[in-house]
């Protein structure tokens, strides 16, 4: 009896198996890579209603983070400053600047400037700025070199794994409290000793239990 199927058909199951493995691996890898917070989150830099340049205000004018975001030292929230803070200077400086029109509108109407949120963690995670900056975690550790950004960009994934990396081993990220806002600070050679001293003296035990953030 003649063969119904040609010989090459015998290879189909083998090839199918191989193809399946490749496709599944591809899908898994695809999700793992393209679905990760590192891929999805890092680099998010939306255009703001006012093209406020951190690079200009911080690097060139030398303004400190606390001038605008001072609540980070007291509260969970590092608040965006009120229009009033901007107007302390811009009532006198760049008064006719076209890009600053939304700011002046806000000042006149009393309606807020609608900034677009860059760093957003889920509602079920409760992050507190004050406890971090007061023990010496620098702004740059989580927010990157904001002093070099024309447009604020998310520079870290801010995923739970990323949080836990530091909570499991905070030592490399600790710095003297007075250097918290210093974007250019580099750890000295004896940083390890310094960090151990701070951890001991300030009793730093970054919590890794769920309720520390989720409640």
């Amino acid at each position, binding site marked *: 009896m003649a063969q119904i199927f040609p010989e090459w058909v015998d290879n189909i199951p083998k090839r199918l198996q191989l193809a399946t493995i490749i496709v599944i691996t591809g899908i898994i890898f695809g999700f793992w890579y393209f679905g990760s917070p590192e891929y999805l989150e890092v680099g998010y830099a939306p255009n703001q209603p006012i093209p406020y340049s951190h690079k200009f205000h911080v690097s060139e004018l030398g303004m400190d983070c606390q001038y605008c975001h001072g609540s980070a030292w007291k509260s969970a929230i590092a*608040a965006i400053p009120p229009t009033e803070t901007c107007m302390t200077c811009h009532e006198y400086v760049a008064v006719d600047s076209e890009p600053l029109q939304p700011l002046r509108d806000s000042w006149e109407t009393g309606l807020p400037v609608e900034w*677009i949120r860059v760093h957003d963690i889920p509602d079920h995670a409760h992050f*507190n700025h004050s406890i971090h900056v007061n023990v010496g975690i620098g702004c740059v550790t989580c927010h990157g070199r904001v002093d070099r950004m024309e447009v604020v960009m998310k520079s870290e994934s801010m995923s739970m794994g990323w949080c836990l990396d530091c909570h499991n081993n905070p030592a490399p990220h600790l710095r003297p409290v007075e250097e918290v806002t210093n974007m250019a600070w580099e750890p000295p050679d004896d940083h390890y000793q310094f960090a151990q001293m701070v951890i001991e003296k300030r009793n730093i*035990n970054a919590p890794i239990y769920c309720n520390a953030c*989720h409640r």
Partner: protein
Amino acid sequence: MGKEQQQTYWRSLNELAQNEEYRKFVEREFPENATELTDGVSRRNFLQIMGASIALAGLAACRKPVQKILPYTRQPEHIVPGIPLYYASAVPFRGNLSGVVVETHEGRPTKIEGNDLHPGSNGKSNIRQQAAILDLYDQDRSRKVLRNGSDSTWEDFTAFCREHFADTGRRVAFLSEAHSSPTLERLRQSALNRFPNARWVTCEPFSEESVLNGTAMAFGRRLRPSYHFDKASVTLSLDDDFLQDSDNDVAHIGAFAQSRALASPDEEPSRLYAAESTYSLTGSNADHRLRIKSSEIPLFTFALAAHLSGEVSGLEAYAGYRNTFSDHSWISVLAEELMRNRGSSIITAGPEHDAPVHATVAAINHALGNTGQTVEYLDVPYTATADQNEAFAGLVREMGEGQIDTLVMIGTNPVYTAPADLDFQTALEQVPESLHLSLHYDETSRQSSWHVNRAHFLETWGDGHSFTGVRSVIQPLIQPLFNGKSETEFLNAVLSGEDAAGHQLVRETWQELLDGPFERGWNEVLHDGLQRGSRYNAVSVSLAGSFSAEAAGFLEAAEEPGGDSVELVVRPDPRMHDGRFANNGWLQELPDPMTKVTWDNVALMSPNTAERFGIPPTRRFGDPNQMVVRLRTASGDEAEIAAWVLPGHADNSITLHAGYGRQKVGRVADQVGVNVFPLRRSVSRLYCTAADVSATGRSYVIACTQDHHSLEGRPHVQDADLDHYRENPTFAQDAVYVPGIYGDREHPVSLFDDKQWPDHQPQWGMAIDLNACIGCGVCTIACQAENNIPVIGKREVRRGREMHWIRTDRYFRGDERGNPQVMHQPVPCMHCENAPCEQVCPVAATTHSDDGLNQMTYNRCIGTRYCANNCPYKVRRFNFFNYSKEYLTTGDDPEIIQMAMNPDVTVRFRGVMEKCTYCVQRISRAKIDTKNETGDTVKPSDGTVKTACQQACPANAITFGDLTDEKSIVSIQKSKDRNYLMLEELNVRPRTSYLAKIRNPNRQLSEPS
């Protein structure tokens, strides 16, 4: 407790009967069909919707949602985003204020707590005050001024007032709620001056008028008795629920709990006797309780006075008087006890009882030398000089006769609350112009020619006095959400036709009330929440010369009740009061402290009375259908209401709670329960004789939580008599055999490895003193407000899905046909160290934290409900539906209710388990603040962290703190001999422990009847 004293506790008669359905019921974690998706969205429909929403979600998720940050333009002083601010204010209720401190998040009030400085509050609060936040954000509040039912404006109203009241000769009647506001009083005076033909009547359905009439009878002046329960060794309550139905309940509970506090067996707690018809909260805390009909209370009181008249002077008017109670065993025992405790006893009577009862009570208290010791008589300048219930009846008569041109109603809802025989509604129709200020467009607003929407007290300025006369300013926390007007602004507009701000009106009044520089004094009052040193004058009293004659008169008139006639007793509801809180979901869903019924009122009766009318006391277990009875008064007024058998209720007496059955008021209040005001009469308001009681044969579904979360009869509440406690102080710990204890009670053998707690962390624990707890349920409401707990509605409650993180279990013990004892036990999560829930969670969504909390991680939970199944205390709650979404996103203005949410607590989603967290958001805040301040520790000092339930509890029953600190209050509480662990034999090592209740019975009255 010894074997011979082993006692069984039961929650319902059906449980006591232990029938087949009961066994089936307790085996199931949730009642039958509760786990099925049968309502709202049917299963098939649900799958379709789910399919569609997955498809949509898949596409929608490709875009990152853009979130905006809207900063202030000009940041208000003191506001730091993320840090709440606290302002002192005051909550008015029936004309009396209670000092509170309100938490606001960026200008949005979210939580009310008591004011530590305020003597009426001492930092504590009650359910009404806790729930007031929800009233503020009630979407159903009236939002506009209405003229004969059609839209109008405040400007039109003021224009109308200017024109209408230009004729000062008009016969104007002002009908007002009880008040103690100096500003309102000032406006009242100018109103009465301006309109010579005007009159001012106070209308409160449940008021202290009888009490004032009673003191007027006894002492010749209308004086307010103020009781100091902390100074009393013996208290006799005559049908008086002073722990609940009182304008000073927070202070009463605190003082009462203090008088019964027991640090060691040597101390002598006070003793409480209660004679009452219904089983009230006060009665449930009594050492001896006598079941008698409310209509027999006057006789009982007179008999007691007559017995005492032979032993003390001042009661000569009662000498020789005899009635059926004269030989009652209680009378002689009480007389002896009261004589032994002269000057340190209190007798109180229910405020709704008639004046002769109050006159007699005042005379007895005075004769026993209690005046000035445990009882003070306060001269209250804000109470009228004449009986306002009579004045109200007179006003309605005149209205009906067309003698009133204009009726100005400041608050109040007389169409709903007025006694039926007055027929207020018909009388109102005869009044050409009626002006009504109210929070809701309610029954009275619909019948009025003008309706003005009222502002909530957290929205406008006001002032007033506490029960004892501490003067406060009501400070607003937010601009009126719906442009409402306060009572002072309303009355001012009526008088002047002008739109003056409440702030200005109040300040004007206070210019005269403050000494020294005004701004300084005013700011002090605002800061403290009260004017220091202010108080009503306590006056010295003596029996009026006319008292003997009056007493002879009312003793003569006292009727012996007909043997088996049935009385109908109408009382204010513990939650709804007279219906003014009916649109508050938190209060509707709070189980009644005694019956545990939610979302309804019922006709309470004893098992014997129920049988008399053909209602079987026990029914098929778990059957929510209750038989409906028809009640008819002699005047022919009827009500049909579900019957509810309450063990311990007096026979031949039926108690009805008012405040239900409201119509077209709001989505919560409408069609809930039955209006029983039609059964009330204008004289002898408390009770009347039923002309007919009959079962209708219909049944009605009641959502009652008393059998939910059953612990199946295990000995979880521990109590003993004082004598037994003195013999064996550790009776509560010894009550159960704990396997595996070899000498060391602290470390019984366990299969699980001992947990290691890091030294740097505090270890949280809680102790609940059952001896202090009176069972009011404020912990539940405080928790609900703090932790964003949704309201789920009657149908869901019936299925055992109530979401309260702390419940108060109520147990009966003893003769269900006689006078069973009652125990109250609040049950939050126990935070077991060997938590059974943690061992069964397949996804580790519930685990232990370093500071000893049993944590629930919502974002990990996949909803298997194994944890709830394995919890021996039944404290876990599951979101069967998307309750929060229903609750927070439906209605025409969902953003309003969202403002009530606590931003520090996650709002939970469907399919997620939740439970008490020991208020972890407060713990976190305290730990972070401590670390920021001290630099090196996360252990907050003792008392810094207060859980919401603890902070609210007026009895100080709940203590919470760090167990590693031996000096913390909770450690001290836990070291007391009464301390025991619930279900200790399971060795789950709960962090929450209980302190056993101690009763202080009188040996002479061994068997309470």
